[in-house]
């Protein structure tokens, strides 16, 4: 908003809609740059997957770690835990941020116990014992104060920042938790030292203050932002059974009661080498980098992934419509259930996303923004709120005064019906295929973009080559494929519609 540093200060951003992630990672085609040839893939004996890409544009390196775990993996009643854990991962380890871990440990145990008792008492609401709450609050404060004597706060960030880190951040999505940083190329060992340590030895310091921080994050992203609130309610309506229905940030009552013990269990289970993909892109010697990674990460034991079977979303049996009252101008969100990648239809829906809303010549812009003047903006996004499980094709729209959300909605359906009724001209398809290829190349330009893309698809689908081959798959899509997919998924019974209605 003001300067690039504000962005920096919003560190630990969660991936709010996951839309930005997917857009960023739209696969790019390869010409004269054989990515598949140049990527090295190694799997350590503990299951850790490492992708390496050597290039010498500048003496820097971008490093991504993605855990194949996210909000979708939280137990019921513990929503928000994956995201709070991501924040807690910056609190240090037994050897980073501690003056004496043996002194810390008993205090931390007491903090966990006292916090649990305090939360339990507060949950009684009207029947809560006010005096007990006061006593416990005081005791917790005292414990936190004595704990502070043995700790050095924000050491991980200090180490990275002082050593010249750029883009230091982390994000939590429904599917994955990600930690990334770019460093001067000679500092790669610092990253290995910190990341291998916090994969096993993170210490949950300052837990309760950080829980308050994520409550503020929720206020900022959902409670004060009409778009954020609408998205949350839309997703909750579109999914009735599958955990994708829950917000990444969590429901407030769950968030207020997140505890250190459950989080430890979740952390142990998910932050395991056999659940992890690392991508290293930049000015590195791959052999030396692998040696370093083996030295730091090789000894971390694999964990049995006791994943529980997830509830599947049953087929939708009729349109769902919801309204969200907010003191704001109208907004509209429409979603259709569809399969995730690498399903063949998902590629077709990528093409449809472009036909509808990529650029000024896209159908939505041409027809709804320019000709009919109904919309301020209309954007299609294929693949929300995650891509590990069946997901949604979504359309975000804002009507232009004095037109209503309803008028705009009808006009959107008219464009969608055109997809079912008329073949797409070859010229239009070619334009989109060219754009997919060019944007693929643009995405290769930065080390961070490439590391993000490789690690994302490797973690999500078990194969980074999905991204590399995506443009070729897109190249093969025909007008008939588009018509068939539109007819299959864009039907009223498979649809959820959410709108903002102005009002307090």
């Amino acid at each position, binding site marked *: 908003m003001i300067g690039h540093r504000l962005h920096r200060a919003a560190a630990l951003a969660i991936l709010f809609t996951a839309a930005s992630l997917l857009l960023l990672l739209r696969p790019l085609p390869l010409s004269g740059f054989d990515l598949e040839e140049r990527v090295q893939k190694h799997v350590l004996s503990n299951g850790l997957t490492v992708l390496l890409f050597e290039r010498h*544009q500048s003496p820097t390196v971008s490093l991504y770690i993605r855990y194949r775990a996210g909000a979708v993996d939280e137990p019921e009643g513990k929503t928000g835990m994956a995201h709070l854990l991501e924040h807690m991962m910056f609190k240090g380890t037994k050897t980073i941020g501690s003056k004496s871990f043996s002194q810390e440990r008993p205090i931390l145990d007491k903090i966990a116990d006292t916090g649990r008792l305090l939360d339990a008492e507060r949950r009684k609401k009207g029947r809560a014992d006010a005096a007990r709450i006061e006593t416990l609050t005081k005791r917790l404060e005292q414990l936190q104060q004595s704990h502070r004597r043995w700790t050095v706060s924000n050491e991980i960030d200090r180490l990275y920042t002082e050593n010249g880190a750029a883009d230091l951040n982390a994000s939590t999505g429904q599917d994955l938790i990600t930690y990334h940083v770019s460093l001067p190329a000679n500092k790669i060992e610092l990253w290995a030292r910190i990341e291998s340590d916090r994969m096993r030895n993170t210490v949950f310091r300052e837990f309760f203050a950080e829980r308050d921080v994520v409550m503020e994050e929720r206020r900022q992203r959902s409670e004060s932002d009409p778009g954020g609130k609408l998205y949350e309610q839309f997703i909750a309506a579109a999914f009735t059974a599958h955990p994708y229905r829950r917000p990444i940030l969590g429901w407030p009552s769950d968030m207020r009661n997140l505890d250190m013990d459950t989080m430890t269990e979740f952390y142990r289970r998910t932050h395991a080498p056999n659940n992890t993909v690392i991508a290293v892109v930049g000015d590195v010697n791959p052999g030396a980098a692998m040696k370093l990674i083996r030295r730091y990460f090789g000894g971390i034991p694999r964990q049995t992934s006791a994943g529980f079977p997830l509830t599947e979303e049953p087929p939708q049996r009729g349109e769902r419509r919801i309204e969200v009252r907010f003191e704001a101008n109208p907004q509209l969100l429409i979603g259709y259930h569809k399969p995730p990648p690498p399903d063949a239809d998902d590629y077709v829906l990528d093409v449809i996303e472009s036909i509808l809303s990529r650029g000024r010549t896209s159908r939505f812009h041409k027809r709804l923004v320019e000709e009919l003047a109904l919309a*301020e903006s209309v954007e299609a996004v294929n693949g929300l709120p995650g891509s590990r499980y069946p997901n949604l094709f979504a359309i975000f729209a804002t009507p232009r005064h004095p037109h209503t959300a309803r008028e705009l909605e009808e006009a959107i359906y008219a464009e969608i019906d055109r997809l079912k009724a008329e073949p797409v001209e070859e010229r239009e398809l070619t334009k989109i295929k060219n754009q997919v290829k060019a944007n693929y*190349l643009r995405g290769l330009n930065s080390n961070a973009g490439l590391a993000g893309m490789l690690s994302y698809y490797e973690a999500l689908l078990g194969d980074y080559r999905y991204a590399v081959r995506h443009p070729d798959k897109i190249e093969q899509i025909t007008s008939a494929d588009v018509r068939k997919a539109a007819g299959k998924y864009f039907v009223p019974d498979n649809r959820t519609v959410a709108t903002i209605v102005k009002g307090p």
Partner: protein
Amino acid sequence: MRRSFRILLFCFFLFYLPSAAGAAPPSPSLPAPDRLKYPPLTWQIPEPSRWVMDNGIVLYHLPNIELPLVSVSLVIRTGSIFDPAGKEGLADLTATVMRTGGAAPLSGDLMDDRIESLAAILRVSADRESSNASLSVLRKNLAEGLDLFSRILMTPSFEEKKLALAKNLKLEELRRLRDDPQKLAFREFQRMFFRGDPRGSYPSRSSVQSITRDDLIRFHERYFHPANVMIAMTGDLSASEARELATRYFGAWRSTAASAQIPPPEKGLSGGMFFLLKDTPQSVIVSGRFSPSKRESRFYPFELLDFIAGSGGFRSRIFQQIRTDEGLAYSTGSFYRARPDYGLFGTYVLTKAESTVRALAVLNSILGDLSTQPVRVEELSSAKKAIDNSFIFSFASAERIVSQYVSAEYDGLPGDYLKSYRKRIEAVTEKDLLDAAARYLGTASPSVTLILGNASVLEELRKIHPSMEVLAPLPEE
């Protein structure tokens, strides 16, 4: 004038540093992170070539042949600072309709079609004190891309129908302004900070409605001419190709007009506290004051001061105290916008209604400490190391390198600005920092504070700050 392709040598010496006070002793298997030893980082940052065309346009070029892509960008010495009174929004609409309103012989619609068929990305945008245009195109489509780009910049048609669309979209944006508390608060802060200065003016319904095609044509004539632009080309093309193409597509651009001068702000800041009422569970606090310009020697200590205050990561004071220690905010910190003739230092917190008063008090006490007490030795050395070590990221791609050079020239900074920056940061002492802080952050220097919050926040704040001015709500657009 042409400087030969030279190599700038930036050496990054990375010394062994003793571990920070209080860090735990290393375990036998894991070295303490502060004791890790790194190989030296030496790197030659290529210096872009600079060339002045016959018509006066400055052209920068730096190749990057890894991918078959070319980027061309223009910086234009104009912006909304030149919006005439009553026509606020003109610079923005001019930029938008240059891009959308066609350029002979192509209509706006045909132009869109050509650009997107080439899979090119072409943008024109106006900022407050500068404007930009950019083209990203595949190498094989470079000539046609440049042809379209140059027409848009030199001879835009400004079709009435595209102007009407742009105005209507702008009006919708104004209507929706109040929906976003953060955007609204930062805008109102800027408005109150720069009262009586064009930097504080914003488009309104009536100013947007009053803008005509003739206004756009005149604005374009006045500011889009060779003396007022610099061009940067990077990517898969050689220096001679860059010159040849620039001459072919921009050589005919002629004008006798001199380059525009961006006026400095009226220095006198009348401080104050302002409140904007909005029914929201989370308040937004933005506070700011004038600070050193980029051309003053105090710029360097102030860069460090800003880093230590709230922009230098989690350890910076505002982040550490307000977020980590007290859990009062997710977004909080400081910013320092240094321009050639002035600087603006600001702080911000987004916090729940109930903790607004507390957050404001912590913010004030942090600035109070900084302006009266020297910073800790390790704070200063850590900030210096961070700025020094991360310097490479300002030069990590051809685009970034060229953009650094173009910005320095745009701002009229001395020729050695980029090369001497790190040395000048390194030379700053604790005393320099305290002097700068005392002068700019002390209670004697006026500040503007804007708080957006709900009725309960207003009531509480009024008790403590009876002179706080409550702003009239924005008109229903």
